[in-house]
């Protein structure tokens, strides 16, 4: 099969659109996760999402919408708890992380029948994305893009110096909860592509790279999105070429590219200094 034949397949086209839609969200939200140092928090939210997957399977409802509601609620709960107990943030994330996972596993366990598709949610399956999922992703993208553009100034100030932002009358608590909600919805979107165990890599590696090349938060978001798209497309191709799972292929590609760029620029830096 040639590359052109491949691109004519409906499921491949869906996968490419999904890669683009996910990259928009991953770039914007990933940049905010990295500059606000919310990587561990994002890991917690991603694993909690498994509770939503379990609940949907148990109730026999469509997985993505149920997971979107469940994960959003868990993120807000986590946000509410950590605002008042900032010094316990790590502990609370750990608890919610494990509790969400356990809840999901128990619900799946007590659901009668064999759950063949479970691995799909853990490691992703971009090649099985259907049209309704694409619409859901486009909706979440529109929400994230709209809020990020409208609140750009406030998010910038909040991310740089939250205490100072409060003295300017910026609603810092509201922005924090909004950011956690956006992280939750981005995670849900990405479950289809890389799976909830690998979400964290696609949300952090592109912004880490983008930070090297950009001078503004908006620029970092844009370049992160482009890196994310590059990782998804290269990973998809690697998945086809080596006949391996798409989720792990995307993350492995991202890691290889990240290490290549990081070590090259490290060497260039040393050469310039010497």
């Amino acid at each position, binding site marked *: 099969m040639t590359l052109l034949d491949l691109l004519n397949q409906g499921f491949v086209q869906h996968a490419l659109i999904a890669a683009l839609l996910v990259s928009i969200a991953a770039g914007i939200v990933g940049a905010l996760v990295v*500059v606000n*140092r919310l990587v561990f928090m994002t890991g917690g939210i991603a694993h909690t999402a498994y509770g939503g997957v379990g609940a949907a399977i148990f109730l026999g409802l469509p997985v993505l919408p149920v997971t979107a509601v469940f994960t959003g609620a868990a993120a807000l709960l986590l946000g509410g708890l950590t605002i008042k107990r900032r010094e316990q943030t790590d502990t609370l994330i750990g608890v919610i992380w494990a509790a969400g996972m356990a809840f999901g596993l128990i619900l799946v366990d007590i659901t009668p029948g064999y759950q063949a598709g479970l691995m799909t949610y853990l490691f992703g399956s971009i090649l099985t994305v259907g049209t309704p999922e694409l619409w859901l992703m486009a909706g979440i993208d529109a929400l994230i893009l709209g809020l990020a*553009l*409208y*609140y*750009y*100034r*406030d998010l*910038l*100030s909040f*991310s*740089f*110096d939250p*205490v*100072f*932002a*409060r*003295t*300017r*009358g*910026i*609603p810092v608590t509201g922005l924090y909860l909004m950011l956690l909600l956006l992280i939750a919805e981005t995670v849900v979107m990405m479950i289809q592509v890389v799976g909830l165990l690998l979400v964290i890599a696609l949300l952090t590696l592109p912004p880490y790279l983008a*930070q090297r090349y*950009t*001078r*503004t*938060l*908006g*620029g*970092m978001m844009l370049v992160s999105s482009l890196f994310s798209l590059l990782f998804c497309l290269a990973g998809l191709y690697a998945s086809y070429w080596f006949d391996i799972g798409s989720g792990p292929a995307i993350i492995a590609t991202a890691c290889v590219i990240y290490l290549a760029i990081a070590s090259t620029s490290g060497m260039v830096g040393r050469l310039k200094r010497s």
Partner: protein
Amino acid sequence: MDVIALDGVAFRFDREPILEDINLRIPRGSFTVIVGPNGGGKTTLLHLILGLYRPERGQVRVFGDRPGSHPERIGYVPQHGNLPPGFPATVEQVVLMGLPHDHRHGPLFFADERERARQALDRTGIIELADRLYGALSGGQRQRVLIARALITEPELLLLDEPFSNIDPYGRACIYETLDSLGHELTRVMVSHDLGITRQAVSQVIAVNRWLVSGDGPTITDEMLALMYGQHDQGCPMGQIILGGEPVAHDHGKPRP
């Protein structure tokens, strides 16, 4: 007219009393320095004035109103050490973050706002740094960027939290010069754990260590020293050194400008 008025203010953090029975008046146009040991409640006092904390007892009034009511009239310079160094923002963008939250939204700043940022940078003497990355600057330069961020609204009250911590002597000299040049219509309140900062421009020194002792003029009294560090034997020359108003090397032998 007093810009800041605190009456019988008490504050606790996790049931731990931080400040008790604080009474304070800061008149318009004055330059007040708040000294005291680390953990004595100096920053907490600033946060009460900013409206970031609410007092457990007593009343705080700023410009006669509840704290936090007039963000555009107050400039705040926090300790710079807490800010993320790798953050993607230019100096101009950091200064623009000093604008109060209002009806303007969206990803772009307007020409009039950028002009105000340039003016604030000009006032602190670092206009040439406008397009540099904030993270690439020295400690002293960053501190002056944060002062410019506080000045963008042309505030009537400037609150500074330890502006000299981790700044080399040259950087300190530049910041002193900047603060001196801001004009006497601006009310300035500066927190410092460093007793050597008092100089002629200072109109009053206040010592805070859970309680507050205030005096007249730029002098640290024996009563203040006792509050901060406990009762010591008489004959310690510290009070006389500071009385002179000249910055003198006395704290752990560190050189000063």
